[in-house]
């Protein structure tokens, strides 16, 4: 075998090896069909929240979420809160805004990166979930989340909603009411808001109400500087 051939052979082997090593991690990401096997094209669920319409002191979205998912509604330091109302005040101008805050369902979720077992994962349609079967309760995702979206279940639970399994020792957060969405419904918070603050829909469908509105009004993502590309956008911030 001539030297040139040997060199080429080695080069090809190294290149193939390098390519495999580069591609392999990508193949570990779940890129599978969204719930409906007949769907064409990729859905990305998201929400647009109109903070101007959000009323300070109103907790309808929180109450609805608690009822839907079987949360106690208590707000001590150890109680899970999947959605909460935050009152913010601009320090320099004094302008006050009220808004609901939940898991932002990022495109590049830090919680998914740090989870040792892969329990924290992103579904193909963009919803970030905790697979309770794999969760070992290490709470690393809670450390990683920039939005404090995750809660840890500190006590044994009884009489859970059959649609929303939750248990002691695992971490949980807003599921975008995945059990409702998979049947074609809306998240409970979006449905419950009397002022239509939360608009839910498919960001990737150009005909959807949310896609049209996001294209026409000014909206931002919270902590956009982190480049996580959350699926939840806010108007009026």
């Amino acid at each position, binding site marked *: 075998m001539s030297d040139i051939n040997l060199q080429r052979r080695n080069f090809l082997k190294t290149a193939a090896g390098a390519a495999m090593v580069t591609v392999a*991690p990508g193949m*570990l990401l779940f890129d599978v069909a969204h719930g409906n096997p007949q769907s064409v094209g990729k859905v990305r669920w998201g929400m647009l929240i109109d903070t101007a319409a959000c009323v300070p002191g109103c907790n309808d979205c*929180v109450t609805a979420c608690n009822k839907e998912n079987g949360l106690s509604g208590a*707000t*001590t*330091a*150890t*109680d*899970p*809160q999947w959605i*909460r*109302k*935050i*009152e*913010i*005040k*601009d*320090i*320099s101008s004094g302008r006050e805004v009220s808004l609901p*805050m939940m898991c932002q369902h990022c495109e590049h979720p*830090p919680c*998914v*990166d*740090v*989870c*040792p*077992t*892969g*329990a924290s994962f992103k579904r193909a349609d963009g919803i970030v979930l905790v697979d309770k*079967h*794999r*969760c*070992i*309760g*290490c*709470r*690393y995702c*809670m*450390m*990683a*989340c*920039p*939005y*404090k979206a995750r*809660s*840890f*279940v*500190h*006590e*044994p639970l009884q009489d859970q909603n059959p649609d929303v399994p939750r248990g*002691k*020792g*695992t*971490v949980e957060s807003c599921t975008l009411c995945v059990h409702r969405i998979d049947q074609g419904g809306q998240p409970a918070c979006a449905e419950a808001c009397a002022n239509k603050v939360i608009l839910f829909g498919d960001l990737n469908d150009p005909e959807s109400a949310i896609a049209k509105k996001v294209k026409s009004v000014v909206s931002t993502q*919270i*902590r956009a500087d*982190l480049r996580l590309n959350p699926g939840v956008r806010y108007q009026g*911030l």
Partner: protein
Amino acid sequence: MASYSIPQLRSHLYYVLMAVAASIVLAAMFSVHSMEEHGHIITGMNNQVVWGMPHVFAIFLIVAASGVLNVSSIGSVFNKPAYKVRAPLAGLLSIAMLAGGLTVLMLDLGRPDRIIVAATNFNPTSVFAWNIVLYSGMFAAVAVYLWTLMEQRMNSWSKPAGFAVFIWRFVLTTGTGVIFSFLVARQAYGSAILPPMFIVISFAWGLAVFHVVQAAIYEWNGKLLDEYVQKRMRNLMGVFVIASLYFVATYHLTNIYFARQTEFERFILVEGGIYPQLFWIGYVLLGNVLPLLLIYLPALDRFKRIPVASLLIIIGGFCLLYVFIIGGQAFPLDIFPGYSVSSSFADGEIGTYHPSLPEILLGLGGVGVAFLISAIGIRVLDFVPHEIPKK
């Protein structure tokens, strides 16, 4: 076998110490059982401060476990004979502390019954998953290294084994540092200085633990530590302490420089109550200034200096970790920069944390496990250093 005679009293004392350590470990197991039954609500941890006392203990033990191997590395990799005879003891302490730290970490999990899930589901982007490989690999690497040291026929392999352990523990301690480095959103973490800081700190804490254990063993057996070796090891510890203080200082100084970080630094260093107290008095004064005075001022009592300085360094280490881990979580996330924030979920509020008895017992249980492994190891096998005869 180690050549020492055991007076009746010491034999009894040994068993008493073992019993005390075993009962602490038992108390820790009871705490774990309570946590499994009632949930983490019985601890002081909550949705704001998710990692507490168990993690302070565990990270100290793991970092010190990596650092104590310095003694072996200086012997095997850098060929210093005074350290070479201490290499097996350092290896034993490393395994013991690693076991203790991992015990605490694994038992603090919300679902410790799912460790098998952690071992079989591996997310390659997660440092925790990598640490599972690194920590278990460390046990194997140190075990092999000990074998090359203590089995005469394998002695020629001790240098490559020592080198492998040397590299492995650098990777492992980096892995411990990046647990925090990778957390981009928290003001206390998300910094590339943390892995090197942890590595240098591991040198200081590891050597401090080694000194304490060595002093105890020599006192117990009526042996005298050669003054030359004492001085070398003592000065080395001084260098490590200065180096780690440098890293901690740089970390804070850089933070203070950034406008978006000054409020956090003010919390940690000035206004945060327990955190500045632990930092300045516990870490800086007790953990750095006093030990350095003890190490470098010749006026003080010659032999007792090292164990006292080492104990102070260890106490300082715990204080630093408390401030770093718990203080870092207590300071709220800056979700809306430029806004003041309030909500039902403690947004914008300093998180509260009070260490609870189950957590402290669990942490002490890890120390107990480390003690038991070390004490049994020293008693059963030939770990006590054979001093080189003076020429």
